[in-house]
């Protein structure tokens, strides 16, 4: 039952991820990425990580990707920017070579992963993956990292504002 849901979802994610890196237009990439994020949210749900699945949709597919789309629109990008790259043949060779190498590596990884013995999930309590459970952990064991993360976000915000300002003076 889970398998039946998992395989289409996983396949969908992989296809969309590939779509991100092969499509020549950044808009297409971005849309593929959104689709992949949504697919991943599904995978999260499968693993009982409901809270994160929601976050995935809200933060990634919502906020981050909107930002991407916004920038793409702002810069008014066309898809013809890859010309110089593909003109040089050795770049193509390198790409293909890297692709094959990646496949080979993936195969190796798969072999290693195949040895993993956990075939079924542990018995999890009901509140696994809920806001309560995550929140408790977050605010007890990981309170310091949490605060640090908030500072990071603050810094990022300030940084982004400063960088994006018209003139730096």
């Amino acid at each position, binding site marked *: 039952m889970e398998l039946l849901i998992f395989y289409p979802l996983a396949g969908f994610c992989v296809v969309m991820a590939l779509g991100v890196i092969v499509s020549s237009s950044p808009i297409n990439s971005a849309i593929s990425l959104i689709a992949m994020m949504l697919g991943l949210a599904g995978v999260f749900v499968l693993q*009982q990580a409901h809270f*994160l699945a929601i976050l995935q949709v809200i933060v990634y597919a919502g906020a981050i990707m909107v930002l991407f789309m916004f920038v793409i629109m702002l810069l008014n990008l066309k898809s013809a920017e890859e010309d110089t790259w593909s003109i040089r043949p050795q770049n193509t060779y390198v790409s293909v070579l890297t692709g094959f190498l990646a496949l080979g590596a993936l195969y190796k990884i798969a072999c290693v992963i195949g040895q*993993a013995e956990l075939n079924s999930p542990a018995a999890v309590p009901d509140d696994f993956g809920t806001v309560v459970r995550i929140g408790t952990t977050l605010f007890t064991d990981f309170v310091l990292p949490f605060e640090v993360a908030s500072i990071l976000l603050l810094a990022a915000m300030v940084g982004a504002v400063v960088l994006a300002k018209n003139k730096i003076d």
Partner: protein
Amino acid sequence: MDGFVPLNHYLLLSATLFVIGVLGVLLRRNVIVVFMSVEIMLNAVNISLIAFDHYLNNSDGQVFSFMVMCVAAAEVSVGLAIIIAMFRNKPTVNLDEFNILKW
């Protein structure tokens, strides 16, 4: 096979997505697409974290994923700001054009 997805399937998915992300980062010239590929990689890691969590009955991984998302958000906001700043100096998003630091 009792209907559960084995852990290694998740890990394989994670690895595949990660490799795709890596390829994107390495092979694409468009800085925005590169950024997106980074996001793919981050997500791929998230899958692993959550899968392990589920199979080991532990919530720490989810907290980690949470952090990863935080970082991703911060990174994207700053990164895109940098891209905009760069674009102002040189109207292109082709990474090869940004070579003033090249020897």
